[in-house]
């Protein structure tokens, strides 16, 4: 039932409605929009400087561009693009964790609104946009479905002047894409097991006993991502 999609453009009928001036009938609701002007050139605010100021490459970087437009310009068109791509995935994630369709949709709504509000907290040296949204969705799941508090680690003592290193950010975004490709290239059964583990469908005991959790090829990718992150943290 659940499969990874390699062509991430869902063929769904769309309702060409205008949302208060925001055109939601854009032809492609699933990929980040191509940039006309490199976002990192346009936007370099030192005080809020949690982003790079020059362009990177790849889809992961395009999503960063979308987050910057949300952060700095409260750009609803950018938000709708992000919503159309991620809200269905967040909804699916929550349904797999046991939420019914209505609750999952309500949570997806909250998750996407959180993305809007917390856009200034996103740090591209530490996560891709997909990873950041994954963590918000997971925390929402723990809150709503498991009715538990979620203790989070103390933040690193980064001052407001912390300027993410661009090389770290580019490296991390590229690493995220490679990681995604590595997962996509796994045999189907293995991919499904990875999905189950990260979508919270296995218990801790099951994960601990999964000597065969097929991390094989992605293990080296995880290790590379880990090294990037270590490096980024050392510099901060």
């Amino acid at each position, binding site marked *: 039932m659940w499969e*990874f999609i390699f062509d991430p453009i869902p063929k769904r009928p769309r309702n060409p*409605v205008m*949302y208060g001036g925001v055109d*939601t009938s854009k032809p492609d609701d699933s990929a980040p929009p191509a940039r006309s002007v490199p976002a990192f050139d346009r936007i370099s605010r030192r005080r809020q400087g949690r982003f790079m100021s020059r362009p990177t490459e790849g889809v992961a970087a395009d999503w960063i561009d979308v987050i910057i437009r*949300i952060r700095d310009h409260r750009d*609803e068109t950018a*938000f*709708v693009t992000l*919503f159309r791509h991620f*809200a*269905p*995935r*967040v*909804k*699916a994630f929550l*349904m797999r964790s046991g939420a019914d*369709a209505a609750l999952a*949709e309500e949570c*997806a*709504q909250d998750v*996407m*609104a959180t993305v*809007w*509000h917390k856009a200034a*907290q996103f740090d591209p040296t530490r*996560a*891709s946009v*997909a*990873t950041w*949204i*994954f963590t918000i*969705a*997971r*925390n929402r799941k*723990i809150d709503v479905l498991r009715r*538990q508090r*979620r*203790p*989070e*680690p*103390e*933040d690193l003592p980064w001052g407001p002047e912390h300027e993410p290193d661009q090389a770290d950010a580019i490296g991390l975004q590229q*690493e*995220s894409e490679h*990681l995604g490709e590595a*997962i996509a290239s796994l045999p189907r059964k293995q991919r499904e097991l*990875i*999905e189950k*583990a*990260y*979508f919270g469908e296995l*218990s*801790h005991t099951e*994960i*601990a006993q999964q000597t065969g959790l097929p991390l094989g090829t992605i293990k080296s990718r*995880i290790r590379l*991502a*880990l090294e990037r*992150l*270590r490096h980024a943290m050392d510099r901060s």
Partner: protein
Amino acid sequence: MTINHHLTDDLIRSYSAGILPEAMDLIVATHISLCDECRAALCAQDAVGGAVLERARGEAVSDACLDRTLALIRGSDRAAGPARDTRKPDAPHDPVLPAPLRDYVGGSADAIRWRPVGMGVKQAVLRTKGDAKARLLRIPAGAAMPDHSHRGIELTMVLKGAYSDADGRYARGDIEIAHEDLHHTPVADVGEDCICLAVNEGPLRFKGILPRLAQPFLGI
């Protein structure tokens, strides 16, 4: 600070997946607060979660849902103004309790409400939901914890001082992962009292008769 004893990959992965009982989440978050190595490992695990989310097939979301979300963000932007990084700086650094623990204690180490459990050992049970229990332990310098074993795993993290048992020596930041039925008797270093965070999946089983009788009253 050098940390020698770390979280296991499967604990970090489970924390990332959000499937642990609250008490286990608490000890994982507390360790990561002090340990850059495990913090990086968590980011890497989250990255796998992100990659899985990115490539997952979605469930159709209604346009009404988008409408409601847009209404939500417009409404709160009017109320709160544009996006700012609204995170509060962490409370002044506490030499004993990292931020996640301060939230549960309701302040710094002075705010811990210790209860004696015998032989000079004190504890404070922290309020968490789910199948695991979290408590702070204070073992007097040079003293031993009552010999015990447990069902499920027991995680112990040192916050102040140090202790040793058959498996090694544990100082601030170190986490010991003891598996089911391991009998161990941690002994605190002589220099100062040892404060730990201990999390158990199942109830403890003490060897001696007295601690066993006392157990129901101690909530452990």
